Every structure is written in C-alpha cells, then in structure tokens.
C-alpha cells in the first residue's frame, strides 16, 4: 500500500488553513481565536479586578488614571476541533477513479491541513457495521497514524446517515466535514440536523464518479445495487438515461439545499478531479480552506 498523500501535496497543504466563521473553544491552546479570554498578544477587553484574579494582569496605567484596579483581557488562542466523517459504504466503492479511495485522500488532505495548524482532528468512518471512530489526533506527527487508519478501513455496507446522529451530537462546538456520495437510500437530513444542533460549523462534500454524472453504457442490463445487492432488469435508452440524470440532479440539489438551510457549506466533487485541485480550488471557493 503506497502513501495516502504524496510528500509534495503535503507540502502544499501546509500553506493552507481551515477557515472558521466564528471563534471556537478548544481544550488546548492553539492558533485559533477562542471565545475565551486568554494569553495572546491581541487585546480583547477590560474588566474590574475581583479577588482571586491573577494580579499580573492588572493594568497599572489604568489604575494610575482611574484609581481602580482594572484587568487587561487578551484573546485566547485555542485549537479548532475538526471532525471528519467519511462515507465508505458500498456505493462509495465504485467508479473510476474510485470514490472511496478519493474520499480517503480528500479526508487525509483536510485532516493534514488541520493537524499542521495544531488543530484537533477526530476521524469517523461510517460503513459496514458500527461507525468507527477514533481518538483525536493533534500535531503533524499524528498524520501518519491517521493516514494508516484511513487506509485500513474497509469499504462496503449500506449507507445509514442516522448512525451519525449520536457521534455528531456529542461533538463540542467546532468544525465538521462530511464526505459522502449522498446516494444512500436513507435521508441525510437527520445527520445535518444533528450538525446544526451541535453548533458545528462545517461542510458537506458530495463526491461522485464521472460515470455517475454521465453513464457510459446503454442497452439491456441487469442492474445490481452496490450496497444492497438488489438486482433489476433494465433497458437503457436515451429516455431512461435522461430520467436517471434528472433523479440524480434532484438528489444532489436536495442535499445542497438541506446543507445551506443549516448554514453548512456544500461542494459537489467529481473523482475525475485531482485531490490537489479539490483542496486548493473547490474547497477554497466554498470558504472551507484559505
């Protein structure tokens, strides 16, 4: 098994950073503006001294002018909790280039951007069986183990977005990125609603293969569902191709509308697009990365 991401790509990713629209509260110090007051060079506010406060923070110049003890408050800089939810269901193990493989690389790239900025990354894969979570990772050195985990998760099984509701619900406010093809039979709304409730600022990245966007076959076939294994006889004609493309467009539009309704970013990606371009162009365009 080769490396998930090439060293050259990793170097380019170090120049990027996750963009958050509001201040966040992490557990450890980092490079993100926190809603809490802490130690940094950036002045935030004054407040009256109360016993027990660190007297090192008293602004003596203010005392000289006002004859009152005032504390100078500074913006705390903390880490950004980033949760990555990667769909590795049966429908993702399809297409050329393979959607699951591309999802792994994309998740790895976003995670590396966060790790390089001392943000905390929690990776969750939902596929066959139980949803697989993991311990949060922090710092560049955590990248290699995280990449190994990504590559070790097998793909397959039925998409069930409802399984994400509980893991999302226990997130601390932060950023969540959901990478999926959105084609599962179950609705995606519960998962997005959970994101909103958990005060997650995030993005839904829909990943589709070029063969899905423009079917390259016609004629008679026995169609087999990649997740359920259900089969059905089918004759592809220009008319039925059009019907399929309309259904696909409706489905993706539905996901986009649901994401925007909840203040989430949305991007539709094709696996024909290199991960490098996805990260540097598309994710930059939707404001996820800067």
């Amino acid at each position: 098994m080769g490396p998930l991401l090439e060293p050259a790509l990793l170097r380019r990713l170090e120049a990027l950073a996750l963009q958050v629209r509001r201040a966040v509260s992490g557990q450890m110090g980092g490079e993100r503006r926190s809603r809490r007051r802490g130690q940094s060079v950036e002045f935030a506010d004054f407040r009256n001294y109360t016993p027990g406060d660190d007297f090192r923070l008293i602004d003596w110049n203010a005392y000289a002018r006002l004859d009152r003890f005032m504390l100078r408050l500074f913006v705390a800089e903390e880490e950004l909790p980033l949760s990555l939810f990667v769909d590795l269901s049966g429908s993702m193990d399809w297409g050329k280039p393979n959607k699951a493989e591309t999802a792994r690389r994309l998740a790895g790239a976003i995670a590396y951007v966060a790790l390089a900025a001392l943000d905390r990354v929690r990776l969750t894969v939902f596929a066959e069986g139980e949803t697989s979570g993991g311990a949060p990772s922090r710092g560049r050195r955590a990248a290699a183990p995280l990449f190994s985990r990504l590559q070790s998760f097998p793909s397959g099984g039925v998409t069930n977005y409802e399984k994400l509701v509980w893991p999302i619900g226990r997130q601390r406010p932060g950023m969540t990125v959901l990478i999926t093809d959105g084609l599962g039979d179950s609705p995606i709304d519960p998962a997005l609603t959970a994101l909103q409730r958990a005060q997650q600022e995030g993005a839904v990245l829909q990943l589709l293969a070029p063969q899905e966007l423009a079917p390259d076959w016609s004629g008679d076939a026995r169609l087999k569902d990649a997740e359920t294994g259900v089969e059905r006889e089918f004759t592809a004609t220009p008319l039925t191709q059009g019907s399929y493309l309309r259904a696909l467009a409706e489905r993706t539009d539905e996901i986009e509308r649901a994401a925007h309704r909840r203040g989430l970013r949305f991007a539709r990606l094709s696996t024909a697009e290199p991960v490098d371009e996805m990260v540097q162009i598309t994710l930059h365009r939707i404001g996820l990365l800067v």
Partner: protein
Amino acid sequence: MWKGARVMSFLAPAAAVLALTLPAIIALYFLKIRRPTRVVPALHLWPSQVRDRQANVPWQRLRPSWLLFLQLLAAAALVAAAVQPVLPAGASLARHSIVLLDASASMQATDVAPSRLGEAKRQVNAVIDQLGPQDRMTVIAVGPSPRIVASVTGDRDTLHRAVNGITASNGPADLSAALALAVGLVRVGDDARAYLFSDGIVQPLRASFSAGLPFPVEYHRVGVSGENAGLTSLTVRTSAQTRAAYLHVQNFGQQPRSVSVEWRADNHLLDVRPLTLAAGQGQDLVLPVPANATSVTARLASSDIFALDDVATAVARTPRAFRVLVVTPGNVFLEQALRLRTDLQVDVLAPAAYRASAAYAMTVFDRFAPATLPDGPSLIIDPPAGSALAGGPPVGIGRVRAADAGDPLLANVDLQDVHVARGEDLRSSTFGRPLIGSLQTPLVLVRDEPFRQVLIGFDLHESDLPLRIAFPILMQNLSEWMLPPSVPSHSFHPDEPVTIVPEPGATSVSVIQPDGNRRSLATGSIATFADTDPTGLYTVEQVIAGTVERSWFSVNLFSDVISQLKPPERLTLPPTRTTAVQATHHGQLEIWPWIALAALGVVVAEWLAFHRGI
C-alpha cells in the same frame, strides 16, 4: 366506361413467401434476453424500464408490446407491397392503346385548370398508370402536323415523359392525319383501341375514313366553356386617299361581354375603344393607320379563357411592285386582266421592239415568240407557227374543260360557258402538263421547270374566254403562281407555309420570328417557310447588293371554328371496320407504392416508440 368490379390481383404473388418474416419476428420476442450485470451505486435512482429487444435463450412468455405490434405491422405492409397488389382501374384498355392527345390551339383554353391540354395530359397520365405489364401504348400529339411522341411501348416513364413534353401549337388539329398515323401502327388482328383526348374542335375528317378504322375510337371530352371573345379579322386597305384597317371583334359566348380594344401602330398606342357585345354578337371597327406605320396591332384588353385570339397583327406597308412586260400586237383583255393585280407594273411593247431584258420579273408573249425565252416566268399565248413552242396545225375546238378540276390554278375558274373557235394542236407538245383541254387537244399547258411558265395554244381573240368572269380569275391564278408576291403581305394562319421568292440578286434571306428568332433561307430558289406556329409579325430580311431590304407578313389565328371554343357534346368519329370482338380488359392501378410508404411510416413510428420508451 370507367367502372369495373373491384377485385384485387397480385403481380408478384411469389413474394408472399416473405410473410415468413412475421412468425420470425414473433419468435424473436419469445426469446429471453441475456442481460449483462452492471453494478450501480444507487439503484433507486434508475427508472423501472425493461424491454426485450434481442434474441436470447431461454424461452420466455410472449409479452404484449407496442414494438412487437408495430414491427409486425411494418413487416406485413412490406410483404403486401412486395406482392405488388393491383386494383382494377376504371379504364377499359386494349393490349395496344393509342392515345390521340389534341395539342391544337383550342387546347390552350383555360376554362379548366390549368388548361385543356394540361387536363388532357392529367387524364392520359392516369391511363398510363393503369397499364398492365403486357399492355402497350402509343401516344400521338394531334396538331396541324400530328406526330408520334411514344411508339408502342409499355415503359411508363417513357410514356409520362412523352406526354408531359407535349406543348400546344397555335394551329388546328388534323385528326385525319393522326388517325392515318394510328392506322399505320396497327397490324391486322391487333387488339388495339384509340382514345381521343380533345375538346372536339378538330378539322373535318376526310371522306376516306368513312370505310371505318381497324380499331374503335373513344372520345374523352376536355373543356366545358365557350365563353370567349376574339378578333377574327384584321386587314389594311389602301385607297387613293387614305389607309384604314378593318377589324372584326366577335363575342362567341352566351353572355354579354364588355371589352376594350387597344389599337397600336408599331407598338405605339393610338386608341382604346370600349365595346359591349351581346351574346354571339360581332362588330366591325374601322381604325386609322398612320402613313409611315409598318404594322398595326389590335388587342382585346380583357382577360378571357383563350388568349390566342385576343391579339391581331396586320402589315401596313404596301407590297413592292413587280415589273411585267407584255409583248403583244395589241390585247386589251390581257392588259386589263394583268393590271388587276396592284403589285404589278405592266409595260406593253410591240413585238418588233422586243429586246431581252432582265429588268422584268415576268414576260408575256402574245402571238409572238422570241428566239429564246427569258430566264424567268413567262406566259406564251398562241405562239406563231414556226416558233419552237408552236404546236401542230390549228384544229377546231368548241367547248373546253379542266384537265384536273381540283387543280389550285383553276380555283374559282368556271369553264362551263367558255368556247374556243380554233387552237394549235398541242397533243404532241412536250412543254408541260395540261391544265385546260378539249376533246381534240390540250389548250393550256403549264410547267415548273426550268421556270414556272404557261403556254396557251389559242388566240384569245378566237375564244369567248376573255368575255367570261373566268378570264381575270384564271390570269390572277396563273400570274400569282408564276410570280408570287415576294413576301405575301396578307395574314397567314399558324403553321401555314409561306412562300418567299428571293429578290433577284439577294445574297441572303432570313426570317425573324415574332419572338426574335432568326431563320436563314436558301437564296437560289423560291423558299417555303413553314415555321409559322407563333402568331405575330414576321420580318423577312434580304440583303441585296449590301443593303438590307425588309418586308413583313403576319400570322394570326383568325379562325371562327377555333375561337368559338365550345366543345361539342358528341364528335362524329369513323366507325370500326373490324368485326373481331375487342378483348378489352380493365386497367390496373398499382397500389404498392402507397403500401410501401405506409410501411415506412410504421417503421418511423416504431423507431420513435422505441426511443420514447413506449
């Protein structure tokens, strides 16, 4: 005549074996399709759409399908077209059908759309489409000179092309000549039948057809109306003081008609006269002719169903005069008779003063014969004994008679009361053919070679001929025969030959038709110009010693028979001479092209149904 029992027959019944394609198509639908498996990420996005369209194993139950129905329908239609079904058509056809298609002037009438000729062509084309594979057809265009345009052929394309290529002439329909052509094409025992598509306005049939024809003739009348007004006469008369044109306008219809007559000289409008003509009424108009006009034209400025008689043209110039020399000791009758022709300038000379001269177009020798006759038309009357042309000793004659009563030189010449006292015995003369004779001897001989010349073998004073009305008429006939006007200035009918005598010394003679086409004629001899189908003014140009001499003649319809236009209900046609039973059969109407077209439509529908996923 055009009705028959509708029983379908087939020209290619063996093609019915193609019907095996129908069970073959059904068999294909019994076969189940083997479909390749394709994994798709989300089956629920694909519509429920299943259609068998390929032969496979194993067998399956036949499912009703629009595609199957349309394919069976298309195959059935193609099989039906392949056997070439034919319906009996209305026409009773013989094995050899002779179509006589009237292409005369009256067929230009537009009382039926697009014209009588167009309607007749449509009817003939319909008959051609009904020809069976064994049938043959001949098409004869009946005009002033009937011609065979398609001869004994069964090729429909050839026949259609021949019929569609026929154009109407401006002349009359010579049905007798057309029937003579048709008779020549039919052999004894042939199963032939003739079909005349005409408006019935044809020249009277010759008496020789009263014995009957070897085939029956069916008359198919074309045209309905006789509502027409036309110009039937236009002549220019010159008197001592004035020149005037006399025009006759005739309403041939059953309805009153208001027309206006445009009067032009050399295309310059001189006058417009409104006229109201009652049904069948004609009116004469006297119209002025300018002194310097070459031609005058009258035009009816109202549109009717027949345009050919709405224009009349006449030559306004007086013809050029001929110089005629009369060598005679004295003959008042002869001089007066010759002077009746206005275009002759007569010089009289005593025999003693005669010298041969090329200045005269014609020479008349009365009781005198030169040593050698001049090169040109001559009339020799009673040559003296001893001359080369003199006959035998005089014989007593008495009554005279025509050698051939139908000879055009004796037209209107009544010889009933003509007597001759005595005349030369011309029985042994080799001068030419006899024109007038008696019991005893020929009296008047004529010849064409080397020049048109006439020999009268008696002294006019020894006869009562000069006292009869026949004399000036005979002299007129003879002089016009020997010396036709260089270019006759009167009006000709379309397709009537015009005799043109080149002027002495003419190096080129050409005729310019009304449409501007130029035709060259031979200069050495009298020429006959027969290409006179277009009506209008013809110009004859002769180049004489480097100068161009122009003369004119006009061609106009001027035919009451044609202009009255009303097609006769019945046309008297010659009886059928043959007693053999005519083995006519009904024509065949092939319907396979329509079936094949329907099959094409079904195939297109099947294609659309497939692509629309029906």
